[in-house]
């Protein structure tokens, strides 16, 4: 009887978990393990694998190109995060007030979020076209310099950052709006009664109480930022002369253009390590500045 029930329970566990466990094992766990295996080999996807131990890793760690692609991913984050954060927070503060047409504005700012990265990259590649794109036409009309954007090594990464921030602004806005609405209004009212001005209220109450949302945005942005690929691949292809090549772009090129799959796998694990460290540091550091109401 007891035994029978235990077996029946196992049956239920299997029934409820197998539909997710089997695909996760097949399409995440197995590839993950074999990725480690591949990273210890020299392999061009076609001929036999050759064991090289940790050579791929040591080579990558001393390679200038590795440093350059990590630097570009980092620069991307450093450019992108302030733009979307300040912009998204500002928008959220404005749209949290009583404003005619507020839902229209919110919908408008969010539209790019549901548009795919490839489309955003193509549309912006056209807008930022150096010779006859709209942005340079306008810049020229008002007498400002017209950068070469994605054709210019200096401007390629900023072009990618600009279009990415445009796409994600609405996302950050929605997260911050939800955070703002979670702040109890009586706290703010009490502060007003006590004579706190608008800036003081923001600085001393709203912003600290928003810190969980801020934390979420920072973590997500950095994780996604280091994994940036789609918009770079479409807009610049990593160029010109590798000036905007990012880590994932390098993983892709190493595998499918240069047939160095082992090195590519090793690089993807280095990236994973970097993301893990950055996330861990932030989670540890959050105690100091994130206040959960």
């Amino acid at each position, binding site marked *: 009887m007891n035994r029978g029930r235990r077996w029946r*329970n*196992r049956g*239920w*566990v299997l029934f*409820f*978990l197998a*539909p*997710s*466990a089997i*695909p*996760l094992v097949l*399409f995440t*766990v*197995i*590839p*993950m393990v074999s990725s480690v295996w*591949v990273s210890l080999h020299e392999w061009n996807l076609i001929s036999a694998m050759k064991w090289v131990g940790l050579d791929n890793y040591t080579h990558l760690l001393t390679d200038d190109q590795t440093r350059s692609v990590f630097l570009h991913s980092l620069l991307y984050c450093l450019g992108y995060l302030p733009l979307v954060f300040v912009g998204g927070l500002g*928008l959220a503060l404005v*749209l949290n*007030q*009583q404003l*005619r047409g507020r839902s229209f*504005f919110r*919908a408008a700012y*969010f*539209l790019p979020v*549901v548009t*795919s990265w*490839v*489309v955003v990259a*193509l*549309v912006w*590649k*056209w*807008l930022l*076209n150096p010779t006859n794109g709209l942005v340079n036409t306008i810049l020229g009309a008002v007498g400002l310099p017209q950068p070469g954007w994605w054709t210019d090594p200096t401007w390629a990464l900023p072009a990618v950052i600009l279009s990415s921030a*445009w796409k994600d602004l*609405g*996302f950050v806005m*929605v*997260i911050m709006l939800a955070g703002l*609405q979670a702040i109890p*209004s009586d706290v703010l009212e009490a502060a*007003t*009664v006590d*004579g706190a001005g608008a800036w*003081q209220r923001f600085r001393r109450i709203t912003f600290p109480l928003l810190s969980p*949302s801020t934390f979420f*945005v920072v973590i997500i942005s950095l994780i996604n930022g280091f*994994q940036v690929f789609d918009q770079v*691949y*479409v807009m610049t292809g990593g160029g010109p002369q590798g000036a905007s090549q990012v880590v*994932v772009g390098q*993983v*892709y090129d190493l*595998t499918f253009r240069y047939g160095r*799959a082992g090195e590519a796998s090793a690089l*993807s*694990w280095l990236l994973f390590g970097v993301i*893990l460290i950055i996330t861990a540091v932030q989670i540890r550091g959050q105690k100091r500045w994130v206040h959960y109401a």
Partner: protein
Amino acid sequence: MPESLSVESHVEPHVESHVASPAPAREAAPAAPGRPRKGPWLRLLTYAAVSLGALVMLFPFLWTVITSITPEGSLAGGPTLFVENPTTAAYRTLLETLPMWRILLNSLWIAVVSTLLQLVTGSMAAYGFARLTFRGRNVVFALYLATLMVPMQVLVVPLFIEMTTLGLQDTYMALLAPSIASAFGVFLLKQAVEGVPRELDEAATIDGAGHLRIFATIVLPLIRPALATVAVFAFMGSWNSFLWPLVVIRSPEFMTLPLGLSTLQGQFTTEWDVVMAGSVFSIVPIAIVYLLAQRHIIAGVAHSGLK
């Protein structure tokens, strides 16, 4: 969508209370210090800024449409807002180059199927973790969470090899495989299931209901908000997915929109009318979905940030 999730329904009363005029009880006292009435100028400035921002957000979409109907020859001279003789030539070229309708259906189909799969597999696992007791439950759940940490690009190479070995390269199955189950969904849904009062299960058990009945008739209806959030993320994730299709799909008839568009760019480097026509193709369906489900989508995203 229940009240608790809708951003809109949360805001209205709340905003009213601290932006609108002070409560009558305090009316006798002079206006609270530090909260001067907003001048009309500041208000105007706010509107101007927000409108300008909205223009920056929306104009690129309009520009995409305009470019797509501009005769190719006129583009070289720089953009014009009013197209003198609009043409559908770009769309014709586009349809001759790529099976765009099929690619569009592929994208929709893959997004819908993978969303449904993730909802089914995710809610079942959530129920298993939240309501069944078995040895090693926490360990297994931790393993699920661990798969969340592994980014797609780590998996891409071996997954590609796996698909090639299984003979699945260039198939719908290959596109779907990595998104049949998502640990993110399991995590979110498990929290929701834990929020369902156990008394409900117990009452149903006494009435003779088994796990399947409890799951389907009690738990599922009560976790709808979380299901909506998972659905939004699953759908957007699939719709936007690029790296994986780029790696595993070669033939146009299995391409999704992002992949199809990116190949377009290679073929029509300078023919922006064609590239923009392709972009219109992929903006319109998602814009329609967005307009229909806007509140749910925004609420779903907002919900994820509160976790």
